[in-house]
């Protein structure tokens, strides 16, 4: 860096002012101009977050929303050069600083997570599935999963109910957002067992192996016939949604 410490400090002071509004003395500046910068920078954050999280913007009071924006703007060192990725940093900031507890809005983290994951899947880089064949045995063969998806766990079903209403339905919800061929994002609600199936199949485990492991680890308490039917039903649903593409080629 070829800046003198003085010039570096001037830039730091200007940024500090823009982020916090704390009074600074910078030679040669005009207050009206400084005010504009503070307003412009904050507006950029506000607008980007309002666009990304329209439900949270509606559910939170104006004061709560402003607190989030001001705190984030003042204290968070934004890492991404791409402002459309900033909502992820906002969501993790809100979660890490426990605003859900501070505002007594337990569903807040899930609300932000749900919206961010929708953006993330909608915008994620295009990815091709591994080579696959269409014909195969759903239980015996390795299934190829389309990579344009994510899976999240929610405590409150904010994808099913209005945020306040979701409070009454606290539990374990597994949600699988995926991108369709015409670029829409769809969500599949998964029971815990199916979320487990999905993760295992994604790792390359066949249905046969999965069932065997379940049988071995659970002793004789499982109804293996029912479990097999359940797994087959799940696999068929995943194929019909396009999340499962086919069977690993060359095997």
């Amino acid at each position, binding site marked *: 860096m070829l800046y003198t410490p003085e010039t570096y400090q001037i830039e730091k002071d200007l940024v500090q002012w823009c982020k916090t509004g704390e009074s600074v003395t910078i030679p040669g500046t005009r207050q009206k101009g400084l005010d504009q*910068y503070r307003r412009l920078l904050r507006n950029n954050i506000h607008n980007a977050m309002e666009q990304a999280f329209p439900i949270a913007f509606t559910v939170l009071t104006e004061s709560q929303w402003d607190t989030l924006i001001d705190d984030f703007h003042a204290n968070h060192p934004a890492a991404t050069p791409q402002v459309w990725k900033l909502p992820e940093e906002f969501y993790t900031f809100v979660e890490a600083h426990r605003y859900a507890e501070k505002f007594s809005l337990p569903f807040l983290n899930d609300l932000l997570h749900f919206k961010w994951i929708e953006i993330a899947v909608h915008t994620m880089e295009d990815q091709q599935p591994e080579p696959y064949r269409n014909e195969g045995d759903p239980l015996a063969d390795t299934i190829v999963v389309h990579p344009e998806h994510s899976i999240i766990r929610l405590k409150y079903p904010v994808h099913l109910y209005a945020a306040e209403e979701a409070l009454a339905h606290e539990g374990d919800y597994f949600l699988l957002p995926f991108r369709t061929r015409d670029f829409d994002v769809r969500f599949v609600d998964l029971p815990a067992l199916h979320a487990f199936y999905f993760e295992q199949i994604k790792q390359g485990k066949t249905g046969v192996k999965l069932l065997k492991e379940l049988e071995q680890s659970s002793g004789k308490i499982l109804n293996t016939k029912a479990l097999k039917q359940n797994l087959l039903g799940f696999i068929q649903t995943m194929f019909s949604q396009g999340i499962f593409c086919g069977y690993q080629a060359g095997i």
Partner: protein
Amino acid sequence: MQPSIQTGIGFRREIADDFFGQTVLQPDFIEMAPENWVGLGGYWGDVFRRVTECYPVILHGLSLSIGSPEEPDWTFLKEVKKMIRKYNVKIYSEHLSFAKLDNAHLYDLLPIPFRKDAIKHIVKRIRQVQDFLEMQLTLENVSYYTPVAAEMRETDFIREIVAESGCGMLLDVNNVYVNAHNHGYNAKEFIDQMPLDKVNYFHMAGHLQVAPDLIIDTHGEPIIDPVYDLFDYTTAKMGKNVPVLLERDFNFPEMEELALEMKKLREITAKNSKHHVIHA
């Protein structure tokens, strides 16, 4: 840049549909911010692919932050370089400002103190970036709402940076107008002192006057006549013809209105281009 590539417009999601098929706009090129498109897949990734098949692309970055104390973000610049190569981009422009500090992004352009040490620092950064990209960097004069600890005139600051670094200059004529109004100087005299031989790209835009002594560079309004006049003055004074971009970022009118603005820019460019041919 081919001689026929002259008048372009910023490609924005809000008006993306107007760039395909029978378009009213008919730009000679489009300008895109790499930050808005790098790593983007799905619907918008597909739109990006299709539009880059239809028009030549100029890249106009937002996050290089040449006036930051810290090193440039080489990882992101690597992505920019890939984009430059892939889409045969002839101009990569950025801003003579800073938009992050200590690697924390601010998502807007802050004014650099017009000081000698800042010139040295920025010249070094420009050279680093140019070496990395293996092409000339083009830098834009930005609008600013307050000077910051200035020790010299803005014109001297810009001239020295351009001369010492070998970068090109994106002359934003609207920014000159806005700054002249906000800081009380003569816009034409400012233009006279610019290194016009190094200008390889123009920006033209609208602005919003929010107080008698304050204009904000919004890119959300039509270009006003005094800014067209300043563009006319500048292009007449230039010894060459360079591409000009209509910047419109929001508050979009009917496409016919934008097409008319582009037509006016074409007419001014053509008139002054002809003028130079006659006097060559």
